[in-house]
């Protein structure tokens, strides 16, 4: 009988590979039956892995994830979304008011209000890396925690924060309007940034190593299809449309396919083939968490990552 595996899903296009792997039968080929469990936010997904409610998840590395890893509950096993020079990556945005006020390059961000969801989120990390790269003190950025992406959007649009950084499909939608202006790319400041990772529970790694391997193998095929269809656009239009339809079952499924189709295709970022992991980037992120005292100083990279499943660099 097939092993049943529960996979946490955020309703974002970056989660398409596992949907594609399921739709194209790659999981079935590995003898895995997949059940998708949708989440509204990344953090509960990590907790649900710790509690054993789901088996695999894919999100950015957050303070919460490190904390759970340190408690021995979860481990990062592979990489997913990554900033690469060849594909459009995350963008740095400012409000119209700030732009008019002279904030036209990331170097002008000193003294501005930068929106993040929570302290210790990837937004927080990006903000500080931008400060480092642009050459001003991290403390000169005023970090405004707003908990949720929509809250940050609302604050940016109404000019109550000055800057933010976000994935291209949301960034493009925002810059299409008059209230928000793009002033730079995150990739310029954090080269090789490993934005999201694949993780599972320590229990799975210890008791079911071979299942984890099979899962990653199937996922890798899904990733290849995804990159071919939406990032490199080397797949035929008919096959791409079929993939989009597959993805639409879970993502933007409250809108008719015609409306959802362009949104799914827009601004896809590359996902590392074979779930390759940029360990260097992860180490840098961990070091940042520790420097900001968001995780205990004694957390180690070995607690966080199991490097035995995928290639790392």
């Amino acid at each position, binding site marked *: 009988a097939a092993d049943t595996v529960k996979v946490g899903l955020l309703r974002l296009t970056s989660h398409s590979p596992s949907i594609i792997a399921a739709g194209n039968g790659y999981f079935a080929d590995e003898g895995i039956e997949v059940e998708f469990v949708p989440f509204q936010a990344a953090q509960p997904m990590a907790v649900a892995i710790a*509690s054993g409610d789901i088996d695999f998840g894919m999100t950015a590395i957050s303070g919460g994830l490190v904390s759970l890893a340190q408690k021995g509950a979860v481990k990062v096993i592979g990489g997913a979304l990554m900033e690469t020079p060849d594909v459009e990556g995350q963008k740095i945005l400012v409000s119209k008011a700030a732009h008019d006020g002279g904030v036209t390059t990331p170097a002008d961000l000193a003294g501005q209000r930068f929106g993040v969801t929570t302290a210790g989120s990837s937004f927080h990390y990006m903000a500080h890396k931008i400060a480092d790269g642009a050459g001003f003190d991290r403390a000169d950025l005023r970090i405004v925690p707003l908990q949720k992406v929509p809250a940050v959007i609302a604050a940016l649009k109404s000019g109550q924060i000055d800057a933010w950084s976000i994935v291209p499909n949301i960034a493009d939608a925002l810059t299409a309007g008059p209230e928000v202006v793009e002033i730079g790319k995150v990739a310029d400041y954090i080269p090789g940034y490993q934005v999201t990772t694949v993780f599972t529970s320590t229990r799975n790694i210890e008791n079911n190593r071979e299942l984890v391997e099979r899962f990653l193998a199937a996922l890798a095929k899904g990733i290849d299809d995804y990159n071919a269809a939406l990032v490199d656009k080397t797949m035929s239009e008919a096959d791409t449309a079929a993939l989009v339809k597959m993805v639409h079952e879970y993502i933007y499924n409250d809108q*008719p396919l015609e409306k959802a189709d362009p949104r799914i295709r827009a601004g896809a970022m590359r996902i590392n083939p074979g779930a390759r992991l940029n360990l260097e980037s992860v180490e840098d992120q961990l070091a940042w968490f520790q420097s900001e005292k968001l995780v205990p100083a004694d957390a180690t990279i070995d607690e966080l990552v199991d490097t035995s499943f995928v290639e790392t660099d």
Partner: protein
Amino acid sequence: MSTDLASPAAQHAEPATDLAGRREVPFRGGGFRHRPMWYVGPVVFAGLLLLWELGSRSGVISPIALPAPSEALGALGDLVETGMLWRHLSASLSRLALGWSIGTCLGILVGLAIGLFAVARSALSPLVSAFFPIPKIALLPLFIIWFGIGEGSKVATLVFGTFFPTVIATYSGVDGVDRNLIRMGQSFGLKWRSIVTKIILPGALPAILSGARISASIAIILLIAAEMIGAEYGLGAYILMAGSLFALDQLIAGVAMLSIIGLIVAWLIGRAERKLLDWRL
């Protein structure tokens, strides 16, 4: 104003210096009771919607601040068309029904215990005061670990949310029951059970029903918190998703659904009140 209520001006009728002629005795009664005016509510709603729509169309209300009601209606139309409305609604309603009824029943039981037993009051009422103000959202990570990500944690969120206000409303109601009536029951040697079910519960019923109004609204509010965790369908999940996409039309459509549920629940409780409290006039 078509009420029996003596208006402020009419109240102080007939001062001592009144005309001495023959006149009808001024009406000074009524006890501030008023006639229901069922048509006012819908009119006010319609008026508000109209103003809002006009404000949106004329640009007084910026589309970032609030989408026009017609747009929200469009989003609602999409929901109906794709057949998702029913899915979201049924998921949320069944959670609501389950969570609210468990929370309310437990709340009434514990509230009665606090109202009736000195030990229970001393032990539980500080616990209630301590646990009530704990925000359910803060505990979501723990709820996942305790109750999983299935229906368990969602219903638990609603139960937690409705339990505490019901407890408080119930024991305040019990405290307000006329002690003389209880003494009467005791003097006739009524069983303890009879006194509780026939004297204390009916006496506390007005307070319990007013508590139910509040706890039902809280339960609806908590749908959002409950459906933050791994909910595929449900109005809360729909609103959260609309929010994360900054799709204000869908957001307002979802919020309007919650309002309508709130109105229906309030109407049902109003009916129950009229039926159960008919002795009150």
